[in-house]
Structures are given as structure tokens and as C-alpha cells.
């Protein structure tokens, strides 16, 4: 039940924020903050009080109710270690997103926070749904509010960006739906009744050709969201046009739903096709890492640059997932968490700069260390985190991904490791371009503009994210232990497949 409460608090918190805007301009943001924090409480209470034994059942917390019996659809939610980490990340970044929007969103704040909370609710639903119809339902539900966030509060080219975002995700979502329906059809043929339940669909057997097609439907659906080259082109547009809070959500949580889908569904449901597809997936991962790192170097728009680096980092996730061993998966999960924090922080910084300077053009920035030293230090921290400095979460994640991939494909690992060099190049280049050099020499619209440094509230938010990254870097086991049992089970599923799994 606690999962339902979490969803309810987010859904109704959104409605309350909207209604609250009728009474006071400042009410929505407080309501949103309280809702996001409160949403995680029932779950925490449940986990603490019940102290579930991870060995006993697959799910730490789960619930099940009838929804549409004539389609075999159930309202069933389940939370294991993997979902737990991602739900906590979602709630954490929810707070960060509210903080990012705190001063930035003044116009129509009620509707903004409504959309923000509904996106969060959709994401939490995606991470916990174990009925695939319900999963797809949440998958779509999180897109519509996100579309509104970009379309209403976005920047100059929002119409193009919002439409592109929606079309990419919807069209790939339709492929996902189609593949899901074929899967369910096979289940009905083999077992005589309709069901969308995850555990049921794991039992479906298909001949290799069909399995490959259905797997591709799932893969494309998730790889568009991840995103992986060549389906990534919506992301730079969406990011550069979205308001800061929207970027935080997009980079921090929405991209992770794609990776989660691959781990939870694509590989366990189609072990044989995935094994056959692994070389292609690894190649795409390497391509994403290298190509997007290279493209990032050529950007003059700060947010676009960070967006491309996101795609590059997501390549490590794809690499770790398709290594399909415990190391690789742990690496992928760690990268998801760490990238969630570092990308959210970098987008917040870029948003903060844009709000102060009214431009995202790197060419017109420079020498900001002088007027804004605190901001510079924070930016340096997160840039260094993103480039994979040992001692921070990103390093652990990318290192484990590479380690996992090494046992599968040496050449892919070697090439992917080059990406870490690129990461250093673009991170340091950005630092140099934005914060170093002469402040007075900077040209363009930003020159001479007063540049207020980070305020106390901003510092607190960034400090929180820094702590998270340091904790991941120094105590990775605290995170790895949570997801280990869940990932082991997922690996077992494909090993148990009678036709042979991936090894």
C-alpha cells in the first residue's frame, strides 16, 4: 500500500499545488516541496517497520489489485533494490527540481508544479509497475506533463523542441506497445489466458526470429529514452529549451527510465535475442560515448553541450547493461545514480547562469571565477565528477561498467574507455571557457553585466548533491548492496531460460 500512497501524494500534491495558486502566488512551490518530501515517507516507514528480507521474496514491498480484468490487467506495483534506488533518486531530484524552479518559475506557478509532480508520479510509477500495461500507462503519463513543462516554460525555440520530444518518445512508445502486445499474444496462445503481469510474461517462449523482432520493439522504445545514438537527436533540443527544473528532471530521472526498462524488461524477457543483439548494443554504446563526446566539444550552447555529454555518459550505462553480468549491471546502476546527480547539478548551474546573463552562449562567457568564486568551485566539483574523478560516484559507475564489459568484449571496452579522456577534455574546456580568462575581456551580451554569486539556498542544494556524489564515491557498497539481490535475480532469470542465457 505504501507505494500507492507515494503515487497518491504526488498526484494529489500536484492538484493541490494548482489549487493553491488560486490563493497565494507563493503557495504552489511550498506545497510541491512538501509533497515531494512527504511522498517518500510512507515508503520509508514501510521499509523500516516491516524490515523485509530480500532473500524471501523478489519484492521488498508490493501490492496487487484488479484493474481491467477483461484484459488481464492488474494494478500491481513492486519495489526491489533496483527500483528502490531509483525511486529515492527520483524523490531527491524532485526536491532539487523544486529548488531550481523556486525563483525561476513565477508565471503560472500552480500549473508548473502540477506538471512537475505528475511527471514525478509517472516516473515513480514506471520504476515500480510490475504489470506491463500499467508500466506502459505510467510510461506515457510522465510524458504529457513533461511536454507541457517544455512547451509553456521553455525558451525561445520551445515549440520545436517540445514537439520533437513528444513525437520521438510517442512514436517509440508505440513500437514498445506493439512489441508488448505481441508478447502478450504469445502468452495467451501458450497459456490460454490474457495477462500483462511481469512474472507471467517471463514464461513466454518464442522462436528466435520473432523474439528478435519483439526485443527490437522494446529496445527501440527504451533506447530512444536513454537515449542512444542514433535516436538521441531530441535530447539536445529538449534540454536547451526546457526550463532548469525541466532539464533536471529530464537528465536526472527521465533518461533513467530507459535504462531501467532495458534492465528490467528487455534483457530478462528476451534473453536469447538480447544475447544475439549484444554486439550491436555494445557498438551503439561505444558510438554514443565517443560520437556525443566529440559533438559536445563542438557546441557553443552550454545546455546543448551538457546534453550531449549526458548522451555520452548514458553510453556507459548501455555498455554496462549489455555486459549482462553483475559488475556491469552494478556499474550501470551506479552511473545512473551518479549521473542523475551530476547532470542535474550541471544543468542547474547552466540554468543559473542563463537566468543571470540571459544567454547560454559559451563564447560570450569567460572569467566568471572572479565575480562568482563559489559558483566556480561548485562547477569545478561537478565537472570533475562528470569526467570520472576517483572518489566520486561517477568514477565507480563508469569503472564498474568497463570492468563488466571487459569480460564480454575487450575491443568495446578499450574504445569506450577513450570516452573518459574525451570527458576530461570537454569538462576542463568548459571550465576554462566559462570561469577562467579575463572577466573584463569577455565580449558579447554578458560582458560587464553584474554576476551575482550563488546564494545560500543554492549553495545548500549543491552541497546536498555533492554529499551524495562523495557518499557514492567513498561508500559505494552502501548502494551496491541495495541493488545486488535484485540484479542477481534478474541475471538468474536469463540463465534459467531453457534455451540458454547470455554468459
Amino acid at each position, binding site marked *: 500500500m505504501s507505494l500507492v500512497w507515494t503515487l497518491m501524494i504526488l498526484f494529489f500534491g500536484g492538484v493541490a499545488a494548482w489549487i493553491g495558486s488560486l490563493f497565494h502566488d507563493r503557495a504552489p512551490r511550498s506545497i510541491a516541496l512538501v509533497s515531494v518530501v512527504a511522498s517518500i515517507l510512507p515508503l520509508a516507514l514501510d521499509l523500516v517497520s516491516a524490515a523485509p528480507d530480500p532473500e524471501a521474496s523478489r519484492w521488498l514491498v508490493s501490492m496487487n489489485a484488479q*484493474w*481491467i*480484468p*477483461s*484484459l488481464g490487467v492488474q494494478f500491481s506495483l513492486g519495489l526491489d533494490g533496483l527500483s528502490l534506488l531509483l525511486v529515492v533518486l527520483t524523490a531527491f531530484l524532485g526536491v532539487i527540481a523544486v529548488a531550481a524552479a523556486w525563483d525561476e518559475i513565477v*508565471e*503560472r506557478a500552480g500549473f508548473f508544479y502540477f506538471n512537475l509532480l505528475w511527471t514525478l508520479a509517472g516516473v515513480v510509477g514506471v520504476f515500480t509497475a510490475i504489470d506491463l500495461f500499467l508500466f*506502459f*500507462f505510467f510510461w*506515457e*503519463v510522465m510524458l*504529457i506533463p513533461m*511536454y*507541457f513543462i517544455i*512547451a*509553456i516554460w521553455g525558451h525561445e525555440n520551445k*515549440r520545436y523542441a*517540445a*514537439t520533437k520530444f*513528444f*513525437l520521438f518518445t*510517442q*512514436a517509440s512508445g*508505440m*513500437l514498445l*506497445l*506493439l512489441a508488448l*502486445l*505481441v508478447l*502478450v*499474444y504469445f502468452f495467451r496462445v501458450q497459456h490460454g489466458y490474457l495477462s500483462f503481469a511481469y512474472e507471467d510474461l517471463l514464461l513466454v517462449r518464442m522462436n528466435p526470429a520473432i523474439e528478435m523482432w519483439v526485443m527490437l520493439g522494446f529496445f527501440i522504445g527504451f533506447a530512444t529514452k536513454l537515449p542512444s545514438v542514433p535516436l538521441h537527436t531530441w535530447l539536445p533540443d529538449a534540454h536547451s529549451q526546457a526550463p532548469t527544473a525541466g532539464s533536471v528532471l529530464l537528465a536526472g530521472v527521465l533518461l533513467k527510465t530507459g535504462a531501467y526498462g532495458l534492465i528490467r524488461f528487455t534483457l530478462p524477457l528476451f534473453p536469447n535475442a538480447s544475447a544475439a543483439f549484444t554486439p550491436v548494443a555494445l557498438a551503439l554504446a561505444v558510438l554514443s560515448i565517443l560520437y556525443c563526446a566529440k559533438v559536445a566539444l563542438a557546441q557553443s550552447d552550454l545546455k546543448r553541450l551538457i546534453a550531449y555529454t549526458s548522451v555520452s555518459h548514458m553510453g556507459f550505462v548501455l555498455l554496462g547493461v549489455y555486459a549482462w553480468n553483475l559488475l556491469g549491471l552494478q556499474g550501470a546502476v551506479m552511473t545512473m545514480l551518479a549521473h542523475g546527480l551530476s547532470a542535474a547539478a550541471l544543468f542547474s548551474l547552466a540554468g543559473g547562469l542563463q537566468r543571470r546573463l540571459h544567454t547560454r552562449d559559451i563564447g560570450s562567457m569567460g572569467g566568471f571565477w572572479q565575480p562568482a568564486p563559489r559558483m566556480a568551485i561548485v562547477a569545478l566539483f561537478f565537472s570533475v565528477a562528470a569526467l570520472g574523478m576517483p572518489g566520486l560516484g561517477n568514477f565507480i559507475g563508469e569503472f564498474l561498467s568497463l570492468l563488466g564489459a571487459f569480460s564480454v568484449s575487450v575491443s568495446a571496452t578499450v574504445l569506450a574507455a577513450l570516452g573518459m579522456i574525451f570527458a576530461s577534455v570537454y569538462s576542463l574546456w568548459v571550465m576554462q571557457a566559462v570561469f577562467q580568462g579575463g572577466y573584463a575581456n569577455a565580449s558579447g551580451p554578458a560582458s560587464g553585466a553584474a554576476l551575482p554569486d550563488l546564494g545560500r539556498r543554492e549553495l545548500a542544494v549543491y552541497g546536498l548533491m555533492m554529499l551524495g556524489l562523495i557518499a557514492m564515491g567513498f561508500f559505494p557498497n552502501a548502494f551496491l548492496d541495495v541493488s545486488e539481490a535484485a540484479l542477481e535475480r534478474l541475471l538468474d532469470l536469463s540463465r534459467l531460460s531453457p534455451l540458454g542465457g547470455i554468459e
Partner: protein
Amino acid sequence: MASASGFSAIDTGLSLDSLLLLLPHELVAMTSVIAMLVIAIGRNHFRTALVTFSGLALASLCAGLQLAEALELGMSSQLTPLFLVDSFSVTAVLLICLSSLALALMGYAYLFELDEAKDEYQLMLLLATLGALTLASAAHFATVLIGLEMLSMALYGMIAYTLHGSTQGASNLEAAVKYLVLSAVASATLLFGAALVFAETGTLTIAALDAGSDSLLFQIGLIMVLIGLGFKLSLVPLHLWTPDVYQGAPLPAAATLATIGKAAVAAFLMRLASGAMLMEIDAVWGLLALVAVASIVAGNLLALRQPNLKRLLAYSSIAHMGYFLVAILASEGGADLDVALLYLLVYCVLSLGAFACVTLASSSERESSDFNDFSGLFWRSPWLAFALSVMFLGLAGIPLTAGFIAKFQLFFQAATASEWGLLAAVIVGSSIGLYYYLRLIFQMLMLPESVEPEPGSDARVGLRDLGVESLASLVVLGILTLIVLWSGVYPEPLLSFVEAVAQAL
């Protein structure tokens, strides 16, 4: 000719019981007579609308009661060779009556400020409804023709309805003449087809048609009948009239055309598919598949850059009729029509809702059908914009709306029947469709400061200055929105209802 052959086979006796079965039809017919008398006594817009409303409400109530009974008892009554009353036909009757009820209210508000004669609109709506009801419960080609003609005749008048104001002029007359000529050709084709079928099989009863399915003449006849129906459903390549007529017609008339005009013909097509084993004939199936794919692709592509909302709805209806046809084609030879029925119900509710929104934003003096009229509607009139968004998201098949459930079922049925080509068309069409449905939503989301007043359009659309006459339309729109959202979140009742009805078909 028709009667001589058909009537001899079955008992022609009309008892009181059988008259009761046609009570909704009789009520609507009586209402139209009463409405005419009321108009003859004295013109009064409100009084005519009240008579119409009461009659349709009574007919809906009867149909509802009949439906409850039919579902319980599994009733199926052949009423003379002309009519068949079973739970499917009663469902169609109920749908048409309720839609027509909404249309009467919309028309009342729309025509409120017109200083010309406005009572005849309701009269013609009643006649169109009667035609649609006849068509929906037809079991014989003679009934089909009578129903179709009654529906079309009334629609000619509604499309050409005399209006003033900036939007009207020669365009609605042009639309009416276009519809008149093409509709007459379609009826003639249907009649000729029916004659060929009769020549080959010796019967005009729908249920007895599967006898001579391998003869060429029979197939040609059937195809001609389908051409006649395809025109009414505006399937490609018989769709050319649709955008012009939608654009030229007054909004309530276009809504009538889009909802009860299509629903009645679609219901008959389903009857034909299940009764006459239409889909068993390979030539017919192949042709319909081609038509369905062409409708989906052409409808969506033509709507893509359409700046006029009425034309957009016309193109979108072409695409939706293509989807509907796919549901019939993938129904195991007409055996499993529950998805087609679901799609039809959802389509009717959604287009009724979309038209209700646009009608609320318009009056007979000024129609808001341009995209620019809706710029920033979200901030001026949030509830109207919300309702219109729900309808458009529903038409696009986005979750949380009934449109998603319908599209989901359609996908599933096509996948189950392994119709991959048709399924691909549906997917491509729906993906394209998203773009133009979103365009309108985006237009409504534009911030007021970025909206520059167009030189031509003075007043901006909104709900703020609506009079009492629109209250009923608002209620109707509210109910429609709730239905769409509720069946999107909890579709179980709708799904089991549709399944129960389709089983009886």
C-alpha cells in the same frame, strides 16, 4: 420489387409487442411531427428546442431500458423483414439518440443569436436522427435506402442552413450542393449494387446474403454497396467532399455529419460484416484493406499542415474511419466485432466533444475555426481548453483517455489477427496524427503576451461572455469530458459492455 421477394419469406404480422420494439424510432418520428406543429402554431426557438429535447430524451430512455433488457435476455427480434432489433442495434440506437440530444443542445446555443428562422434546425435534426435510427436497425436493403436517404435529405438542409455573419456566404450553399450531388451518386451506386445482389441471390435481406458469395456479379454488387457506404463514411478515395463540406457547413451541422451521420452508416457496415459474411470474400477484404490503409495515410497526411480546425476535424475523421475499418477487417471474418464497436463509440464521444468545444467558442455570427482563434485559450478559458485538449489527446490515443483504450484494443486485435500491414498503417498514422493534434494544444498553450492579435479577427474565443443559452451545452461537454477520462482510467465497464453487445451480434 424489394418488398415482393423479401416479405413473402417471413411472417409479416405486426403486433403491439413488435411496435414496442421500435419505440425509440416512433418517439423520434412523433417528436418531429409535434415539433412541426409547434412551429406552425408559433415560432419560438426555446419551445421547439424543448420539444426536441424532450422527445430525444424520452427516446434515449426507451433505448436504454431496451438495452438493459436485451443484454439480460439476449433478445434478437426480426421485425418484419425490414428491421432487426437486438442488443447491437439498440446500442446503436441509444448512441444515436444521445448524440442527437447533445447536438440539439449545441444547435440551440449556436443559433441563439440568429435573427432568421432557427426552429427548422431542430426539425431537420430530428429527421436526420430518424434516418440514422432506421439505418442502424436495418435488416433489409429497402430499409437501408430509406434510412440513408432520410438522413442525407435532412443533412442537405442542415448544411445549407441560412446564416449571417462573416463566416457564412456562398460557402455553405456550395457545401450543400456538393454533398447533395455526391450523396445522390452514392445512393444510386448503392441501389444499383443492391439490385445486382438481388439479381444474383434473389433476396435483399442482409442475413441471407452469404449464399452466392462466389459469383462475380454478387461480388460486384456488394462492392457497389460498399462504395455507397464508403462515401458516407468518407473513406479514401471517396473522401474528397469531406473537408469542403465540413468547412462550409454550420458547426452543429458538421457535428451531426461527423457523429450520427457516420455512426449510423458504420453500424450498418458492422451489421453487413457480421451478417453477410462480407469479410469472407477475398476480393472485398482486399479492397477494404486497401481503402483502410489509404484513408489512414491520406487523412493523417492531409491534416498535417491544416490551419482550419473544421477541415482538420474532417481529415482526422477520415483517418479514424480508416482505423475503424481496420478493426472490422481484423475481426476474424466479422465474428469478433467488439473492438470495432468500441472504436465507434469512443470516436463518437470524442468528435462530439471536440465539436462541442468549438461550438461553444462560436456562434452563428462568428465561427472560430481558425487555429489563431485558439491561441492562448489555456490562459483565457482554462476549462474549455482543458476539455478540448482531452478530446484531442483522446483522438490522438494518449493514455488517461478513452481514445487510448480504443487504440490499444485495436492494436491488440490487429496483432492477434496477424494483420501486420494494417497494423503498420495504424501505427504510422497514429504517429503522424500526434503532430497535428499537438499543434492545436500548443496553440492553446501560447502565452498571451506572445499572441499577436490578428488583423482580421477581433474578438478572442473564450467562455467569459457565454449566455444562459450555452449552459446546457456546457453540461454536455462536462459529461463528455468525464466519460472520456473515466473510461480512460477505468475502462472495465465499457469493455465488458462492448463485449456483451458484440457477442449478440
